[in-house]
């Protein structure tokens, strides 16, 4: 059963900090107001999950138009694939109903699989395309599929050390404050 999201603040990975931080640390951003751009949903084709590919003017100097549009179009394609109703989703539904939905303790629905693919894609895009340009895309699932937010990385980052639930080692990273970006 998909329950309420359980992780704390957004887990973001910055490539140039990757060597010094490992998954024990959470990053907390304190960004100033004008540093975020929000891409809204595109409802022209109905209520299916789709984001506007219109290039926001604030990003004019930050990233190439084609790269941005490619990212949003790929995201839209992934969401269309996730919401597609076909043979597999029909079988899944019938099987789940027959097993009183206990089957979802063992297998993942198609939608969840595609959502995982999407978050891997966003992470990869952040590492390869957006972080080198000082930007960061957030996964829209964290905002209830309402917006895709793009934030600038020019801000102070406060790093706090938390022990990860799964790790049992006594390694501890140091707590530092640094400013990243250009």
């Amino acid at each position: 059963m998909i329950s309420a999201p359980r992780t704390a603040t957004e887990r973001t990975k910055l490539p140039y900090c990757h060597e010094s931080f490992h998954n024990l640390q959470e990053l907390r951003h304190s960004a100033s107001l004008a540093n975020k751009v929000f891409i809204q949903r595109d409802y022209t084709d109905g209520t299916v999950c789709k984001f506007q590919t219109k290039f926001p003017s604030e990003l004019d100097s930050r990233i190439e138009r084609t790269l941005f549009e490619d990212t949003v179009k790929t995201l839209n394609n992934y969401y269309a694939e996730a919401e597609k109703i076909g043979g597999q989703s029909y079988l899944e539904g019938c099987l789940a109903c027959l097993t009183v939905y206990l089957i979802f303790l063992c297998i993942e629905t198609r939608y969840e699989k595609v959502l995982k693919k999407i978050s891997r894609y966003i992470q990869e895009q952040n590492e390869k395309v957006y972080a080198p340009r000082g930007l960061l895309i957030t996964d829209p699932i964290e905002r209830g599929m309402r917006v895709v937010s793009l934030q600038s990385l020019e801000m102070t980052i406060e790093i706090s050390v938390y022990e990860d639930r799964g790790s049992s080692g006594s390694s501890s990273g140091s707590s530092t404050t640094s400013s990243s970006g250009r």
Partner: protein
Amino acid sequence: MITRKVTRKWEKLPGKNTFCCDGRVMMARQKGVFYLTLFLIIGTCSLFFAFECPYLAVHLSPAIPVFAVLLFVFVMAMLLRTSFSDPGVLPRALPEEANFIEMEIEAANGNVMAGQRPPPRIKNVQINNQIVKLKYCYTCKIFRPPRASHCSICDNCVDRFDHHCPWVGNCVGKRNYRYFYLFTLSLSLLTIYIFAFDIVHVVLRSVDSGFVNTIKETPGTYPFIWAPEPLP
């Protein structure tokens, strides 16, 4: 070894929900009516299994109680799934997004004279060549997507909000609509099934030993006898 408590998202969720089992269970605050629902379903079914099923299994077929058990398990599973799952709560806007939307609204509305009511915050979007008005939620600070609504009992905006069901102890929205529908459907089936076999049971016993004796012998029918009494 540093052990610091990891803060879960549900601990910080604004809104009047209660959580159990480390966030796996999400319910509304008032659960009294939900406990009543549980009591009614389990109570009537256990009366049926205790008093009617032995007779029916012997005199008619053992498949009758088996099917009743399966149906009962299905009803309980759907009820628990509806009550405990997230109905599709929309996360509230973070401060940056709220400010961004405020600026958009101000740009659209212009200046408002002091003392005058500000115009209602509405955004028009075109969905499949039809203009739909999206309303602004003052609590969550977002423009609600189409078919989303704010539940005042749980203090959350819920996607494809149907209603807040006190019997189930949770809102019914996009993510638990399927389970709620299956719950009501299967509960109706279970009720009709139990009622039908109650009547069959009383009839069969009456054929054997007479109607009045049957009522005396079957405690399970007492609720049905007492029920008509308050009526004039």
